[in-house]
């Protein structure tokens, strides 16, 4: 153990241990806490938890370096089920709490787990600013398009007209498109996947981990109690082939049986889904995750109004930008080099002092 409080090494973070992983190989069990999982049977959250627990040992990151932070909602119970460090915060504030952790300690791997109400209603402000700052966070938004923990009110991603307990005559509100919101908030990594995607989900999460900076992942998640089947158009057998548009960098954006359908861009920038045969393969839009300008990613995010029609899945955008905590640490080092390390007496004495004998 090297965890003690020795010496005023202000710039080195506190008590950072070097990786202990790699010596012993961790398994899924090592990342599973002793707490009983208490989601409704059949909830999409189970699949996501299983995927994360399985992914963790493969990342080679020691458990003690990982922190899961959440707000309030069904999804927010997530940290209790992982044997890492964790904070179950308050509604909507997880990105803020996580920003504090990741900025204080750039050596940590900080994950944020949010629901759609948590992330886009009460916590909308914190989410967009965390993305804008490019804090080194993996932000997972479980989108079930409903309030589950409060038992079935419409959420900021619920479709217009939705009948819920709080909208018996139908919701009047236009939903957020989470991918569009994230892109508009200057996110450097934006992706979408789904609870039932047993292979795609871990793949996308792995990509998020590989991205240093804010990585926003929308995960379509079925709430089988209050909004069952919201993603049927994508999760059903036919939907899987007919409606999931898998984005792959550098490849033409095609989907459907035998890739018969594809996306083209018109001269005015408008995207359209067409039969590949009718326009020719060379007209099909190539996906470019690394494009600095987010316009293409944004256009793709608008391809579907909701998960009821052909919907892009995968990484929309993955670009590099200085990471908030790293840049701040850099400023601290630069200041210490310029001014010398802080000395409290010198600070207090400043320039205007006088002496009384």
């Amino acid at each position: 153990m090297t965890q003690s409080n020795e010496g005023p090494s202000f710039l080195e973070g506190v008590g950072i241990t070097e990786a202990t992983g790699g010596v012993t190989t961790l398994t899924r069990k090592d990342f599973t806490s002793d707490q009983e999982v208490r989601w409704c049977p059949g909830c999409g959250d189970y699949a996501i938890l299983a995927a994360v627990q399985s992914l963790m040992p493969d990342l080679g990151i020691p458990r003690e370096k990982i922190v899961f932070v959440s707000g309030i909602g069904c999804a927010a119970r997530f940290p209790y089920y992982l044997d890492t460090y964790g904070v179950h915060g308050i509604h909507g504030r997880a990105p803020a709490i996580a920003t504090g952790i990741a900025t204080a300690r750039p050596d940590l791997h900080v994950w944020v787990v949010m629901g759609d109400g948590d992330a886009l209603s009460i916590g909308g402000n914190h989410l967009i600013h965390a993305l804008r700052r490019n804090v080194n966070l993996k932000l997972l938004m479980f989108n079930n398009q409903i309030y589950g923990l409060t038992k079935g009110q419409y959420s900021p991603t619920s479709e217009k007209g939705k009948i819920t307990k709080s909208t018996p005559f139908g919701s009047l509100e236009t939903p957020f498109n989470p991918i569009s919101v994230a892109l508009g908030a200057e996110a450097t990594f934006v992706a979408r996947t789904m609870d039932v995607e047993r292979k795609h989900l871990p793949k996308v999460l792995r990509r998020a981990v590989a991205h240093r900076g804010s990585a926003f992942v929308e995960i379509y998640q079925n709430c089988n109690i209050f909004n069952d089947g919201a993603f049927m158009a994508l999760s059903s057998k036919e939907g899987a082939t007919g409606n999931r548009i898998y984005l792959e960098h550098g490849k033409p954006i095609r989907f459907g049986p035998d890739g018969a359908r594809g996306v083209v861009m018109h001269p005015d920038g408008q995207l359209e889904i067409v039969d590949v045969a009718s326009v020719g393969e060379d007209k099909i839009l190539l996906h470019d995750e690394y494009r600095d300008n987010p316009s293409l990613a944004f256009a793709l995010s608008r391809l579907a109004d909701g998960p009821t029609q052909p919907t892009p899945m995968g990484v929309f955008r993955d670009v590099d930008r200085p990471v908030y905590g790293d840049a701040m640490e850099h400023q601290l080092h630069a200041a210490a080099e310029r001014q010398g390390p802080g000395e409290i007496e010198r600070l207090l004495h400043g320039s205007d002092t006088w002496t009384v004998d």
Partner: protein
Amino acid sequence: MTQAPTKQGERRRQELDRVVIRFAGDSGDGMQLTGERFTSATAFFGNDLATLPDFPAEIRAPAGTIPGVSAFQIHFADYDILTPGDQPSVLVAMNPAALKANLEDLQHGGLLIVNSDAFEKRNLEKAGYEANPLDDGSLSVFQIVQIPMTKLTVEAVKGTGLSKKEAQRSKNMLALGVISWMYGRPLDPTIEWLEKKFAKKPGIAQANVLALRAGHAFGETAELTAYEVKPAVLAPGTYRRVNGNQAVAYGLIAASVQAKLPLFLGSYPITPASDILHELSRHKNFGVRTVQAEDEIAAIGMAIGASFAGHIGITTTSGPGLDLKSESLGLAVALELPLILVDIQRGGPSTGLPTKTEQSDLLHAMYGRHGESPVPIVAAYSASSCFWAAVEAVRLSITYMTPVILLTDGYLATGAEPWRLPTMDKLPQIPVRFATQPNVGDQFWPYLRDDVTLARPWAIPGTPGLEHRIGGLEKADGTGNISYDPENHQLMTEMRAAKVKAIEEDIEPLEWRGDEDARVLVLGWGSTYGSIGAACRRLRARDIKIAQAHLKHLNPFPKNTGQVLRRFDKVIIPEMNTGQLAKLIRAEFLIDAKSITKVKGLPFRAGELEEKIVELAS
């Protein structure tokens, strides 16, 4: 008054023991700057001093109007003083509005120095004067000195190439020059400051210096009365001028050095707390991280996150910001993490009076969270005491693993006083012991408490084997797992309260001073310290027996508080609210405390307290 010998060649200066000067002008006239420069020179000269800036919330209210008047009061003396002074003996009025807004406060027979150029028709109308008060004899009870400051300034800066409009802007320096001559203040510190401040605009620097010198020369040539206030006899040591916000920032940094932990500030700009953010953001070489958050809630959230990660999490705010932070503060109570919330109290409710002082957040600090959510409260009582209060807040927060609220107020935050600088050996040790080992067999229980402090262990990410989850849901005693068990909730509620209560064993007892046989105690907290002290001095001078005690900890109260209060027949509590401490004292000790309250955005005057204490004491 005696005539004191002065420098050869200079006329004798009339000696005074103390002076209260108020500089008043339009908010664009640079009155705060003028006051600060005069303060700096006065501190340099060696007087004891206290200041009271009083300015409107608007950046530039309509020029020439009464709402746009900005004032700065300084009290300086050849002895130790406690307040910025009740009534100015000297008023510098740069325009009719400044005169009208401040004249009522000027002592009868006081010295009134006006910029006569500004007393023209339009300005008089804007200030609501039908006739020019300089001509109609209405000011005859004062000694008036009319100086055509605008003209003199324009004349003085001729040759700098500045336009007339630009030139006129230096008239505050002319006024400063006049006052500096009258009270024998050195010009050099101000000249140096001007040259540094306007290094990139040498024309402006030159104009300001010329105006300052011209004012000084005018004082001499016009044979204005010259006064002398000798240096105060202060305790030996090195001094500097400090205001409360600076002192809070320095105290937090000093505590971080003592604890050997980095400081992390999450803050959202708000008057009058923003200067703490500004100050801390300059000291990155101490490893201080500052984030200007997207809102007040994020600011405290980030600080909580930083504390979880092993830094000292700080958040600073005022007024409505305190409301916004309440939910997160409750989370910090549940998480039992160190966190310092600095609240610079200002007038409320709602946006209230952003630039005016008040002490009306005490009950909010005490009770302003849902559920049973106890938080220790520390209060500063003078500008320089903000340093010690900040150190104390950090010490308690770390030792007891609890959020702590540090209360100061607008008056302390912006008011300045000389500060005898402490040496580092005067600072308390703040030992930090991060958990490094499992504490129950091979397990780590995050809520297994220390027997004495009842603090839970602080295990920070990066420590292998101590991975744990904490949250806002009620936790089982010891393990920290989620628990809805009724017995456990009762126990945890009592435990959180007992932990805060235990702090009473670890803080200074309440001291009282005054006449041994006094039957009346004046009890205060926060920034009323100086006013109460000055009022008690006056009472003693009238042979009225009186005692004074001042609380620096409001939750818990010092252990001997009840004992001290019960020693007296009567307890009088002056507060800048409607009686919040009095409520707490009555509830806690069943003592029939009497309130003196004021919510006018300004500190108590010693004279007004003196009279009210006499009324209540009899």
